C-alpha cells in the first residue's frame, strides 16, 4: 500500500477570502487519499511552505502585501498552480470599484501598526503569477474540486446551468416584470425566468449541478460566463442576457437594463475580464477552465 509520503505533495495557499473554498474542499474526502497534504493552515499546523510542491491550490484574492509575498513564494515552489474560486480569479466580492462611495473611507480605515498593509485593490492572482488551471465557483462544489485535481484533461462540464437545472422553459408564460422573488413560493417545475426571476443560468458556466436554481433561487452567475463569453468584454454576456429576457418575457427593456446593472452581476460576471481595470499589470488569458 502506498504511504502518504509516496503520494504527490499537495498544498493549499489561502490569500484574502472567506475560507469557503477550503470548506468545500474538506468535503471532497478523496483528496486525502490521493495526495500528501503538506500545507493547508486551516487543517495542518505548518507555517512553512515546503519546496517541490506538485500541486498548489490558491484561493482568495491578493489583498495585502503579505498575500503578494506568499503568492510569489508559492508559485516558485510548485509545479502546477490551480486558481480556485471567484476571489482568486477576479479579486472577488471584496473588490471595491473605483469611484464607489465607500472606497475612500475603507482605505482610510485600513491602516494598522505592525500589521500587513492593505493594497489599494483586491487583485486576481494571475496579475502576478502564471496559472495553469482555473476553477471558478463561489465556492466550487466538492465534485468540481475532484475533477480539477484528478481529471482536468478529460473533464466534461455542462456548458450552461440550464443543462443541469431540469426546469421546463415555457413559451406561453411571459412575465411583465422582475417580481418573482416578491411573489411567494416559486413553482418547482417551471423555469425561473418564466416566473419573473433575474436568473443568469442561460449564460453561466455549468458544472455546479444547478444547486441554486433547482430549489428555487435564481442563478447569480458565480461560475462566471459560459465558454462563448470567456475573455471578452462583459458587454457580450450582458447582450446575451438581454436577448434571452427579450425572447422569453415581456419585461420592458429599461427594467431589464436596470436589473443587469445589479451588483450581483458585477460580482461574478466580470470575473473573467480585467476586473480591476488596472492596465499597469499584465493579464493572462484564462484558457484552461474547469
Amino acid at each position, binding site marked *: 500500500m502506498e504511504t502518504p509520503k509516496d503520494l504527490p505533495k499537495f498544498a493549499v495557499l489561502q490569500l484574502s477570502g472567506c475560507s469557503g473554498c*477550503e470548506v468545500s474542499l474538506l468535503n471532497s474526502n478523496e483528496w486525502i487519499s490521493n495526495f500528501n497534504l503538506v500545507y493547508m493552515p486551516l487543517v495542518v499546523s505548518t507555517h512553512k511552505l515546503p519546496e517541490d510542491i506538485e500541486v498548489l491550490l490558491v484561493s482568495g484574492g491578493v489583498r495585502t502585501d503579505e498575500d503578494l509575498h506568499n503568492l510569489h513564494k508559492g508559485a516558485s515552489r510548485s509545479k502546477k498552480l490551480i486558481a480556485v474560486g471567484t476571489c482568486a480569479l477576479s479579486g472577488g466580492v471584496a473588490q*471595491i470599484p473605483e469611484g464607489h462611495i465607500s472606497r475612500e473611507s475603507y482605505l482610510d480605515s485600513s491602516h*494598522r501598526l505592525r500589521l500587513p498593509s492593505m493594497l489599494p485593490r483586491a487583485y486576481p492572482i494571475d496579475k502576478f503569477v502564471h496559472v495553469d488551471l482555473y476553477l471558478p465557483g463561489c465556492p466550487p462544489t466538492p465534485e468540481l474540486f475532484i475533477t480539477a485535481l484528478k481529471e482536468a484533461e478529460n473533464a466534461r462540464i455542462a456548458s450552461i446551468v440550464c443543462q443541469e437545472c431540469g426546469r421546463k422553459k415555457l413559451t406561453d408564460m411571459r412575465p411583465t416584470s422582475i417580481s418573482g422573488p416578491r411573489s411567494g*413560493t416559486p413553482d418547482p417545475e417551471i423555469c425561473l425566468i418564466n416566473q419573473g426571476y433575474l436568473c443568469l443560468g442561460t449564460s453561466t458556466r455549468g458544472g455546479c449541478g444547478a444547486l*441554486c436554481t433547482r430549489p*428555487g433561487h435564481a442563478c447569480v452567475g458565480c461560475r462566471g460566463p459560459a465558454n462563448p463569453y470567456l475573455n471578452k468584454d462583459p458587454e457580450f454576456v450582458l447582450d446575451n442576457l438581454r436577448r434571452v429576457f427579450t425572447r422569453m418575457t415581456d419585461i420592458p427593456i429599461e427594467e431589464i437594463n436596470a436589473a443587469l446593472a*445589479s451588483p*450581483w452581476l458585477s460580482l461574478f460576471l466580470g470575473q473573467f475580464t480585467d476586473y480591476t481595470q488596472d492596465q499597469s499589470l499584465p493579464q493572462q488569458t484564462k484558457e484552461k477552465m474547469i
Partner: protein
Amino acid sequence: MTTITYPLSRIEGHARVVIDIHDDEVFRADFQAMEMRGFSYYVQGIPAEQITVIVPRICGVCSTAHQVASVKALEDLFGITPPPLACEIREVLLLGQLIQNQATSLFIFTMPDRVNASSLFEIAETPEGKSRQFSLAQMSLKIRKIGTDLISLAGGQFIHPIKTVIGGVTSSIPREKADAMIKTIEELLPMAVDLVDNYWQMSTEMVDRIGTWGDDEPTYYLASTEADSFRLNSKRLRVMCDEGRECHTFAPQEYENYLNIEESDYSYAGTSSFQGHIMRANSLARINLTNSFGTPKADAYLKRFGEAYGKPAHAILFFDLCRGIELVYALEKAKQMLETDLQHGEAMVRYAPRDGIGFGLVEAPRGPLIHRYEVENGLIKKADFIIPTVHNMLAIRRALMVAAKRYVSPEGISNELSRAVGRVVRAFDPCIACATK
C-alpha cells in the same frame, strides 16, 4: 523588550498572537487579525434585496448564519412575518451549521492539540493516538458531513446557502429526503457520542499533563438561546453577570444600549464589551445559560458537565467540551425536527419592499450575530454587522495574558507557551473573516 510572534493555524482566517516581554514579565499579549474584509463599507449603495446573496460571502465557515441574519433583518425592515414552516426549516439549517462547525472545531482544529499532533490526519501516528482503536479522522469527517448534508437539505447548498429568502424559504423538505437523513443520523449518532466521549477523555488527559484548564476568572456571558429551549433562530439576547446570575435580556434593536463596540489599533478586528465588562460568547456561554436541551443524550451530558465543573463554569478549555455537548444536541434535535412534517404548508409569503431600519438576530455557532441595515430609496445606506467573535476579543486577550504569565519566568520562556497560545485561541474558535467584516 522581547517580542515573540506566533503565527496561528487550525483557525478560520489569518491571525497571529504577539507577546511583548519586558524584564521577564509579560507586558502585553495581542491577538491580531491580519486582513480586513470590509463588507460594511462596500455594501453601501447596493439594492437592499440583493444583500442576502452578498453578505454570506463575509465568511464561508459562517455563511449560513449570515444569510439567515440578513434575511431576518430585511423581513424586520419590510414588516413581514415568515410562515411557521419556513422558521422550522431555518432552524434545521442552523442546526446543520452547528454540527458542521462544532465537528470542525472539535476534530479538525482542536483534537490534534490533545495529542500534540499537527493535524487530524497525523493523530494516528502519535503514541497517544495509536492507542485509539478506530480511525478518528474518518469518523470525524463522517460526523462533520452530516452537518453539511443538513445544510444542503435545508439551504440548497452547504456554503453560501440560498433557500432562505425574504418571506420564507424557496422550497420545503420532501418526506423521502427527510427520512434518508434521519436514517443517517440514527446510524451515526452512536459514533458521534463515542467521539465526544473520546474527546472528553483526551481533554482531561491533556489537562492532567499541562496542569490547567486555562483562564478561569469569571466573566459576563452572552447568548441568544433560551434557558429551556435551545433555539438558534433566536429572538432576544440574554446576559449572565460575573456572579453567575442572568441579569439582562434585550432585543437586537437595543444592542447599542448594552454592548460597547470599539475599533482597535493593534488588529483589523475590533472589540466589544458589556458596558465595559469582559464577556464571552460561543459554546460555554450558551451552556452556562442553558437549563435543559430537551433531548436525552445532550441533557445527560449537560448534567455530567455541571456536576464535574460547576455552573457557571469559567475555564476556557471548557468551551471545547461544551462544543461536544452541542454537537450531540444538534444531531438529536435535527432528527426530531425531520420527523415532523416539513413538506406541506406555506413556505413563503409575498412581500413589498420599503425603506427603514431593520435588525436580524441568529445564534451562530460562535454566539449571537446581529445584522442591522438602513435602507433608503431601496438601497443600503448603512450596514452594521455585530459579530460573535468580536464579543470574545477581550476575553481572548485576557486568556492569552494568563497563559503567557504561566510560561514566562526569570528562568526563561517555556516551549509550552507556543502550544498554549494555540490552545487558548482555538478554545474560542474565532472567525477572523467575520471579525473584520
